[in-house]
């Protein structure tokens, strides 16, 4: 047949985000399980509320170091023995900090789940923090800091948050700490920090996967249920980080020899609890319409029309309380000034109006991609853990998707205007000699130049 006739679209099938089976163990550990037939690799997440902002100022990064050392030796196993148990057990393990929680991720084929959960208990309850491993973790983090500073996108992020948040805020400094603060952390500090901050009370474990023939709640009870932490003090509630009084300015990070300029532009945004003037769904659609695809407002001009960039992305990024609207990407050095001018114009336009077609395309993309985005055990576990971290109910994902249907151009405009003011924190990382005068001449804010 001829291809001149475009086929019609059939209706999408019904779908909702799976609701977990919930229970609570005597220790105060909450258990959420998702039975997902056909997902042979079970994904486990443990969420322990722990605010990075509550680290001692002189030991910033201690929470990240602690998270990385949990599996480097336990009461009963040397570091290499424990690594062998994980590896021969078919287990993939990761641990790290968000701004408000310690998160352990574990993947394992279902038949090995019981052993994996017991190893999880050991690393949460009985980490040994051997002196040699502590020194190694500090050296690794120090090296990582140098690596990150050398990458333009990461360097831009560091400069952005340093300029955007008030200097008194923890959020203005790297979550993983600096060379100085990480270098000050001792084994005794880690042992004390772990004893006080990590325990089952208030923590949650999510188990997602094909649980056919497995009583996952009972299995968790027999393993993680034995996790005790007598000195544990549950984390205090989170609060918003305050923006710097002089956040609306331009920071240039001079990186001579760069063939591209990395741009980062941002301002305040909401967290996912937002209800007025619109719920979170409006901000997801705004992210998509402004900078979420090759046809979004930014790339339609900077990539598809001008060919200045491989791609620039914008997104509202929620924190536990409050958030940011952050845009980033790189352009070739020669067009830095023109690209920044165009980008700021497009971002300024975020407050001034949307077409029905834009609203529809964004809402449909987010709503209709949901079944695929949450189709694996890993993705379901990650989403449920994310709801736990942000203190959102289990039905948030589904109700938020339902809210997409009610969005209009006016709602998007109001939602954007509630946070965006036309002021921006701007960071440009690149070969400043090539374009600094032009950036100044844009008249978009005071310019400070710092070394890479």
């Amino acid at each position, binding site marked *: 047949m001829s291809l001149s006739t475009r086929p019609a679209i*059939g209706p*999408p099938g*019904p779908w909702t985000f799976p609701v977990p089976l919930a229970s609570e163990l005597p220790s105060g550990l909450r258990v959420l399980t998702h039975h997902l037939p056909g997902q042979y690799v079970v994904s486990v997440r443990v969420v322990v509320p722990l605010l990075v902002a509550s680290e001692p100022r002189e030991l910033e990064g201690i929470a990240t170091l602690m998270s990385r050392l949990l599996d480097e030796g336990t009461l009963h196993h040397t570091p290499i023995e424990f690594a062998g148990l994980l590896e021969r057990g078919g287990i993939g393990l990761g641990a790290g900090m968000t701004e408000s929680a310690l998160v352990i991720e574990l993947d394992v084929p279902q038949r090995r789940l019981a052993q994996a959960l017991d190893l999880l208990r050991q690393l949460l309850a009985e980490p040994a923090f051997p002196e040699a491993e502590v020194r190694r973790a500090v050296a690794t983090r120090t090296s990582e800091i140098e690596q990150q500073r050398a990458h333009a996108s990461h360097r831009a992020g560091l400069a952005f948050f340093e300029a955007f948040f008030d200097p008194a805020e923890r959020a203005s400094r790297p979550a993983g700490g600096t060379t100085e603060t990480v270098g000050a952390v001792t084994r005794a500090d880690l042992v004390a920090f772990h004893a006080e901050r990590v325990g089952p009370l208030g923590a949650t474990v999510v188990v997602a996967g094909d649980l056919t023939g497995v009583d996952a709640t009972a299995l968790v009870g027999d393993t993680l249920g034995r996790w005790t932490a007598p000195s544990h003090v549950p984390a205090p509630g989170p609060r918003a980080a305050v923006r710097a009084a002089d956040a609306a300015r331009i920071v240039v990070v001079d990186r001579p020899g*760069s063939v*591209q300029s990395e741009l980062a532009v941002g301002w305040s945004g909401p967290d996912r609890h937002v209800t007025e003037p619109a719920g979170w769904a409006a901000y997801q659609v705004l992210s998509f319409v402004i900078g979420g695809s090759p046809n979004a407002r930014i790339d339609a001009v900077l990539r598809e029309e001008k060919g200045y960039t491989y791609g620039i992305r914008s997104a509202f990024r929620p924190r536990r309380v409050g958030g940011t609207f952050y845009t980033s990407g790189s352009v070739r050095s020669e067009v830095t000034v023109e690209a920044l001018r165009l980008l700021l114009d497009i971002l300024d336009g975020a407050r001034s109006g949307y077409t029905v077609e834009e609203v529809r395309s964004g809402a449909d993309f987010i709503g209709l991609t949901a079944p695929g985005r949450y189709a*694996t055990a890993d993705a379901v576990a990650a989403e449920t853990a994310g709801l736990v971290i942000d203190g959102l109910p289990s039905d948030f994902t589904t109700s938020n998707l339902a809210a997409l249907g009610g969005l209009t151009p006016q709602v998007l405009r109001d939602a954007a205007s509630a946070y965006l003011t036309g002021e921006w924190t701007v960071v440009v990382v690149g070969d400043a000699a090539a374009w600094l005068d032009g950036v100044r001449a844009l008249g978009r804010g005071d310019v400070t130049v710092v070394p890479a």
Partner: protein
Amino acid sequence: MPLDYPIHERRLDNGLRLVVSPDPSVPNVTVNLWVGVGSRHEEPGRTGFAHLFEHLMFQGSRNVASGEHFSALMAQGARLNATTWFDRTNYFETLPRGAMDLALWLEADRHGHLLDAVTQENLDNQRDVVKEEKRQRYDNPPYGTALIEVYAALFPEEHPYHHATIGSMEDLDAASLEDVHAFFQRYYGPDNTVLTLCGDVEVDEAVAAVERYFGDLAPIDRMPRPPGPQLPPLSEPVRVERLETVPNDRLHLAFRLPVDPTQEYLASSFAVDIVAGLSTSRVGTRLVRTEQSAHRVDAHAMGLVDGSSIALISVDVAPGENPAGVEERVGEELDRFADEGPTPEEMEAVLAQAERAWLSSLASQEERADTISHTTLLHGDPGAVNTHLDRLARVSADDVTEAARTWLRSTNRATVAFLQAEAAAA
């Protein structure tokens, strides 16, 4: 564990190979096409062309406007993209099942009738975009050109894997509209393509839909050149040093391996993991955990079909350590492993990790469809999704020892060292 993903293979009269794998667990369908052309097919002076061409596939075709492929599919809830690699180019979208026909129609239009819409303006624009991709991924980051150097060091100049898929700026500049036409006519046709549909669709319905949109595409009757003969391992070390502004010294040690799919390739990939890939690997245990002369070691094998696969070990050298000494000790561990072979615990660990990785890669429809297209186009084996775990389990300790002795001795390495310019000058 036995796997039983359904696999139904059909071949259209025009040569299109179609694989359907129904899975109603999510109301979605993945449409995944692998075209038998990659950077290994590029002519001298036209490196990077297969990838530049892939970009043009999003700029309109006979019945589709420029950029509309993305916008029309995203508006229906599709997640989509395309990638180019040494051996192939792939195009894919996952979308609600009610939009499957739209996806097939859009794919058929560009895979059959791209040239109606290609313009100099689109070519120039996407050339600029690809050059920014190269700058962003390769030219601007520290160590960004490492893989380009690795391939050049590991393979002779005339070998298809000598140059990286991204190509060179000069060659991208030289690409013309005539090249676009010739490339499309030579490589893009149903008889050089595999189409996999995975998801909430019945076999008969899928076959009928593919017939409806792809059935009229004309075959190109390409006579593909057979893959080159298996390259032997390097007989003596090759070394490339780059003095640059980098945060620490980094070593890349690369090796030729047997082609994929062979038991020898799987055995060699196990050897690579045991020596330097596992968290309990020999190099990691000695250099990272014990000596602390390195901050990090990574290793993996890339399976390829045209005369060689590739193993890559990368090591971040700790400050104050002599990179030559670190490299020598990596070599000692390679040679020791080749002499000793793996322990039972190492075999248990490598198999357990490979099993989880394989099962994880099949967890989503989109990755499963991609794997099916891969093994169908490059290995002629659509059912490999179900049999691969058995093949992994059949790799013996002796196979791993034999592979290490043949392919992974220290003398077989090509080293690309990125060293700190100031430290080297001191």
